[in-house]
């Protein structure tokens, strides 16, 4: 059959030529199709920033959007250049991407796969976006990634931590800079064993959805390898707001550590409940009772307030990283300066990862000399870079996952400000976090350029 799918920008250009002064309709069929979906033919290129703007993750989405706008500024040569100055690849010159000015459209994922796909499709079909990025949940990331694969555009994942995104649901057109559950487990377990001892009994509360499962599994496996015992693992409905009935039995269960595999509002509420029930002050099995939150974010820490003090977890990045751990993490300060000067507060890890993703995408296009997703894939596959705040990093070609150091952090006892809630305890080198891409299954497939 003859394909009649057309790229939008391609049509625009030819339309402008053919339509100049002509009232006759011009109809395009397969023969005039562009080389790939939404090939930018004008003087600009459009990126789609698809972030949660309504619902409980709206603040995280707003922070991602700030970072995107900052990245666009820097790519177009405005502002102070941010991490473009520290980035190891020097292909980007502040002249847009491949000489085309970067423009963007925004959309609301509502943190629902359906809405996120609708928004992404409108960016692709209506606005001619050549790349979609953003999101703050794994469900959305997996759904939008699959859509981008079908449509033939690139997806640069935002905040998504589930193993699935680059594991069983990985796609050739999708890329993730953020770390994942496996890395959290691998980074956290040694520190926990060191701090709390190897003879611990853990009680897991796990959010009842895909991310929760992979995180529980990762933390369990790696802590059990350290000698810990898992007393129980209870699934909590995603819609739970009051966790008291799950927290109440913990103290008498024989456990002496509570692991909260929760994120966002779930985590804020479950941690608040745990502290209310006096778990932090209690003793069990002759030891001080401890609470662990595998995945931290600053916005969550802000929501939980004083309750995070002393509680361990991991993050992908933190704005104080370069100050604390030195110049290996160069780029961090440049980004914080740039972001802080513009918005008045430090960026979150969600902002950082989305900024990096935008730069990485732009750089890949620049180096590949094309916006074609297949070219981008080639340029990003096994790409080794530095200077984006996480130290030396590898974009692995076999699953499109970034490998870099991970941070083990702890809630600060006496924060100086509302942004200064987490302190870095340890940094796990990326070698310790690398795994065989085959363990999660899934197939990458081949890149799809759309047209």
């Amino acid at each position, binding site marked *: 059959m003859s394909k009649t799918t057309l790229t939008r920008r391609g049509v625009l250009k030819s339309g402008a030529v053919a339509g100049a002064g002509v009232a006759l309709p011009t109809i395009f069929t397969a023969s005039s199709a562009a080389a790939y979906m939404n090939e930018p033919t004008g003087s600009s290129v459009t990126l789609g920033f698809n972030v949660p703007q309504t619902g409980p993750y709206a603040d995280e989405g707003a922070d991602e959007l700030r970072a995107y706008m900052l990245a666009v500024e820097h790519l177009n040569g405005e502002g102070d250049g941010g991490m473009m100055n520290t980035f190891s690849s020097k292909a980007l010159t502040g002249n847009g991407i491949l000489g085309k000015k970067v423009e963007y459209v925004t959309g609301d994922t509502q943190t629902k796969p359906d809405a996120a796909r*609708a928004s992404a499709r409108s960016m692709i079909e209506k606005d001619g976006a050549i790349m979609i990025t953003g999101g703050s949940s794994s469900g959305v990331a997996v759904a939008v990634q699959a859509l981008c694969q079908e449509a033939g555009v690139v997806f640069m994942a935002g905040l998504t931590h589930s193993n699935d995104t680059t594991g069983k649901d990985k796609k050739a057109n999708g890329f993730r800079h953020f770390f994942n559950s496996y890395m959290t487990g691998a980074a956290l377990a040694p520190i926990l064993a060191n701090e709390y001892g190897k003879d611990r009994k853990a009680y897991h509360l796990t959010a009842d959805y895909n991310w929760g499962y992979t995180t529980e599994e990762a933390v369990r496996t790696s802590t059990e390898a350290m000698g810990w015992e898992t007393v129980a693992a209870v699934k909590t409905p995603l819609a739970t707001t009051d966790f008291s009935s799950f927290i109440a039995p913990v103290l008498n269960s024989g456990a002496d550590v509570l692991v909260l595999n929760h994120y966002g509002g779930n985590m804020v509420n479950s941690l608040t409940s745990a502290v209310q029930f006096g778990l932090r002050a209690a003793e069990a099995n002759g030891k001080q009772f401890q609470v662990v939150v595998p995945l931290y974010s600053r916005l969550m820490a802000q929501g939980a307030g004083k309750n995070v003090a002393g509680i361990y977890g991991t993050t992908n990045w933190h704005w104080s990283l370069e100050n604390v751990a030195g110049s290996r993490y160069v780029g961090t300060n440049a980004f914080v300066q740039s972001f802080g000067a513009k918005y008045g507060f430090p960026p979150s890890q969600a902002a950082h990862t989305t900024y990096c993703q935008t730069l990485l995408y732009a750089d890949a296009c620049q180096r590949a000399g094309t916006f074609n997703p297949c070219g981008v894939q080639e340029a990003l596959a096994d790409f080794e870079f530095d200077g984006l705040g996480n130290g030396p990093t590898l974009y692995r070609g076999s699953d499109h996952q970034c490998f870099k150091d991970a941070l083990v952090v702890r809630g600060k006892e006496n924060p100086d400000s509302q942004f200064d809630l987490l302190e870095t305890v340890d940094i796990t080198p990326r070698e310790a976090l690398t795994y065989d891409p085959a363990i999660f299954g899934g197939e990458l497939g081949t890149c799809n350029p759309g047209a």
Partner: protein
Amino acid sequence: MLGLSKKDTSLLIAVAVLVALAPVLLNPFPENSALAQFNAGYPDLMQRFVIFGIFAIGFNILFGLTGYLSFGHAAFLGAGSYAGVWMLKLLTINVIPAILISTVVAGLFAILIGYISLRRSGIYFSILTLAFAQMSFALAASVLTPITGGETGLQTALNDPRILDGVNDSGNIPAPNLFGLEMGDSLQVNVAGWLWTFNAGYYVAGIIMLIAFYVAIRIFRSPFGIMLRAIKSNQQRLNYTGLNTRPYMLACFVISGMYAGLAGGLMVAMDPLAGAERMQWTASGEVVLMTILGGVGTLIGPVLGAGLIKYFENIFSKINSNLLHKWFSFLPDGLEDFVVTIIYPFIGKGWHLTLGLMFMGVIIFLPGGLVELGQRISRSFSKNKNDAAEQKPAE
């Protein structure tokens, strides 16, 4: 024509013309003009218009005719979606089996839920349907993950069996198609700056919507439809008139559920992913709002309501401050910033606010929904000609 009265025929023809010309009508602004952001004539949104139109038409058959307010109708949409994706995975990527089976599965699910819920009426019925839908949602998102894909949703995959299709070695998941015509295929026409996209999937969905609309008209005008309206009006009298309301209600509930299942099947035919949140109470609430917004018990109202809500969701949420500044750049700087500051809370991340205000505005000023707006306009036009135009009850 087609066994319809003159009035209904002209309504059907009008809807058919609108559906056929939607790609043109919904893109009133030239491609590069500042207002192009308000264009809605792109495949995804047009597909959503007609698919949610079907959902709302079906819901209105239940709510509009019988007055039974189901607060769990999204469960059928979800069940249909899951069934549809499974068909695409197991059987064939051709959309026909997916659409048929999703309708059937939703119908069976509706028999089960309807049989139990219809033992009660009024708000007790509403809460029973809500409870069933919420249970379906909660289970689909968690313990039923192997069947439903959990929170991530059920998707097609490269290694799906698709027993009726040949071997796929393209390295990419095949796209849903109708005997080779891919739902994503489009024909684009460019006329002096206007760009129109005629999308295959949209027309498939649009034709099915017209059929669904036609069937709805027939149901409204049939003896069955009258009995349903009689149930709303006076169930006691109907019982004492020798009619058993139970099977009437159940049949109506199942038909309505099948419409929802059809909508779910079409959704996955256009975009092969089924997420659990499709079953959540907010999704059920949305179709209630669509119907009331458009006009309860009217034929065309639910379609209009569905269109309006989806338009807001997809167009207003995408307007950002950058765009606002572009639009108002003709104003002096200070004034531009001022205007942008005033409008900004209502667009982009504030689109919910606009939606909420619209709900309130419509229901305060137009108690009959959007259809009443249309009636008022046409009345004010025809006032001079003859004011005795007989006002038939809203149908």
